[in-house]
């Protein structure tokens, strides 16, 4: 590269406006949100920017709330089940589609199709599929199940770990809310194709020689999968894990379209919490937004830093 100080400086100036705009709209605005979360600004056009006493009182208020605790439970349950479904589903789909002899393109196209849709479209479709009176419950009833779940309006918590009535602090039952399951299925349906695409790209990059060598050594299908294919798919798995985890934490539109908060906040998530308090409590909405941001950054920053380090080595 013909490099001199002058071109370097010009290059930096060309990049500067984008960087500045991003700096303002991302970093400065996050800073403002942090400040609001610590302030007394409840609502209104004239901001009350005095700091709340005791310091961080809004956060203390949050963690005591039933709704906040339900949100944390929901986001954890949602994330775990969704990641397992989407990543395992994507891996299995990719392994099969990679080896299919006919119609590879068609299968790939169909699996990735939901990714092109808006979460709102996905949400309205799955809301109808799980409608208690006309949806999958019809199938369950025909199979002899008398009282099928109410799905997104069901308040049952599966495998509840605790009884909230006994303690002062825990105000929700920790377990798997039945109401979340339809939303998790919908999210997995929408994003399984993303995982599949990542795994197909990973599979395409495995050198044929490795597999042929294993063949010559007499390795069977499972041995080849276990010792050659899966280890080489590890980078795809990390990418899927990080990006899907970040989708799960931020989930909002899908829940809005399918159920909203649900009875007793069984399907409430941080995104909806924040939205609801945008019209009544700026401080609470901001505090929840910062908690959500921290959860996201814990995942994303190591991933970005890892990418940056790799690049410096390259």
């Amino acid at each position, binding site marked *: *590269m013909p490099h001199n100080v002058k071109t370097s400086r*010009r*290059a930096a100036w*060309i*990049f500067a406006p*984008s*960087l500045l705009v*991003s*700096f303002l*709209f*991302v970093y400065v*605005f996050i800073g403002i*949100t942090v400040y*609001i979360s610590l302030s007394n600004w409840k609502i209104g056009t004239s901001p009350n920017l005095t700091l709340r006493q005791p310091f961080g009182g809004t956060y203390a208020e949050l963690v005591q709330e039933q709704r906040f605790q339900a949100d944390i439970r929901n986001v954890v349950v949602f994330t775990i089940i969704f990641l397992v479904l989407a990543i395992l589903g994507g891996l299995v*789909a990719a392994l*099969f589609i990679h080896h*299919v*002899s*006919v119609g590879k393109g*068609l*299968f790939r196209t*169909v699996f*990735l199709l*939901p990714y*092109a*849709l*808006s*979460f*709102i479209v996905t949400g*309205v*479709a799955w809301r*109808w*599929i799980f*409608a208690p009176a*006309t949806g999958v419950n*019809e199938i369950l009833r025909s199979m002899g199940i008398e009282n099928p779940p109410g799905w997104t309006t069901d308040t049952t918590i599966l495998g509840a770990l605790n009884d909230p009535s006994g303690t002062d602090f825990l105000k929700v039952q920790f377990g798997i809310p039945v109401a979340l399951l339809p939303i998790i299925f919908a999210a997995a349906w929408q994003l*399984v194709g*993303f995982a599949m*695409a990542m795994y197909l*790209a990973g599979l*395409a*990059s495995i*050198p044929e*020689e490795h597999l042929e060598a294993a063949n010559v050594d007499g390795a069977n299908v499972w041995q080849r999968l276990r010792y050659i294919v899966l280890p080489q798919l590890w*980078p795809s798995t990390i*990418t899927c894990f990080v990006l899907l985890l970040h989708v799960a934490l931020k989930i*909002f539109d899908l829940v*809005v379209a399918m159920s909203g908060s649900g009875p007793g906040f069984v399907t409430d998530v*941080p*995104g909806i919490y924040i939205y609801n308090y*945008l019209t009544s409590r700026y401080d609470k909405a901001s505090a929840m*937004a910062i908690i*959500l*941001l921290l959860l*996201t950054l814990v995942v*994303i920053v190591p991933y*970005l830093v890892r*990418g940056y380090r*790799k*690049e410096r080595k390259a």
Partner: protein
Amino acid sequence: MAVETLEPTTSRSVQAPRQRPKKLAPKPRSWSIPRTAGGWIVLAVCTLATLGMLVPVYVIITTALSGSTGAPNFFLAFPDAPSLGAFKGAWTKLHGSLANSLQITVPAALVSCLLGSINGYVLSKFPFRGSNALFTVLLVGMFIPFQAVIIPVFQFLNMLHLQGSIIGLILVHIIYGIPITTLIFRNYYEGIPTAIIEAASIDGAGIWKTYVRVMLPLSVPGFVVAGIFQCTNIWNDFLFGFILASPAAWPATVTLNNLIGTTTVDYSELMAGAVLVAAPTVLLYLVLGRFFVSGLTAGAVK
């Protein structure tokens, strides 16, 4: 590995199909009948899984077609008398916001692609001290939950008297689209030989002249990939439209969501609306799927 987000040396997935790396071993052209039992099992599993994936699509379409008789009593039932009646109602309610979505998506996607292209060009061909670190700083903007900035954004648009307007939404989509388009273009330009830039520079062309005369003409595939990606993202946005737009500027996703009434839901009209909202991005995907997938694997995806 095409999946590694930030690796310049291996990120070839956004390149024009012509520049794709050669396959390590030539694969036999598919479309052959399976020859082994295992082959048949793989085909059967793929077919069944694909049919399973299509169930929601079938449900959306058949319910949308059940217009005149109302939504069926069972979600898998095929309508007795299929009609396009529900589409009429859905169109009446949605056409205004579909137009809004179009007015938001096209300029926002164009401008964010142009900015991303300029940034990507500078970062990949004229790296300066600290440019990689600054790029990583920029990328964070792609991943933050927008709720963490929404109150300041709201106040900022208010200050500019753009609150609730289509222009405000365009502005926001452009700003938060810069990181992803920069990433896509940077990866794309990594695949274009630096020798071309060097030649132009020896001929006396500066950064801008080289961009306009040399880089832009080579950028068409990059613009297609980033453009499809941004169009899809912006068209499918709900959060910004929901929180920042006034009813007159509602994008189609928001209006569609509002069709879910609080008491009863007209599912046939709702599904017809879903078809209308989904149609543009699905068409883009079906027609230009290869580029769509490139955008996906190019870099990280929101």
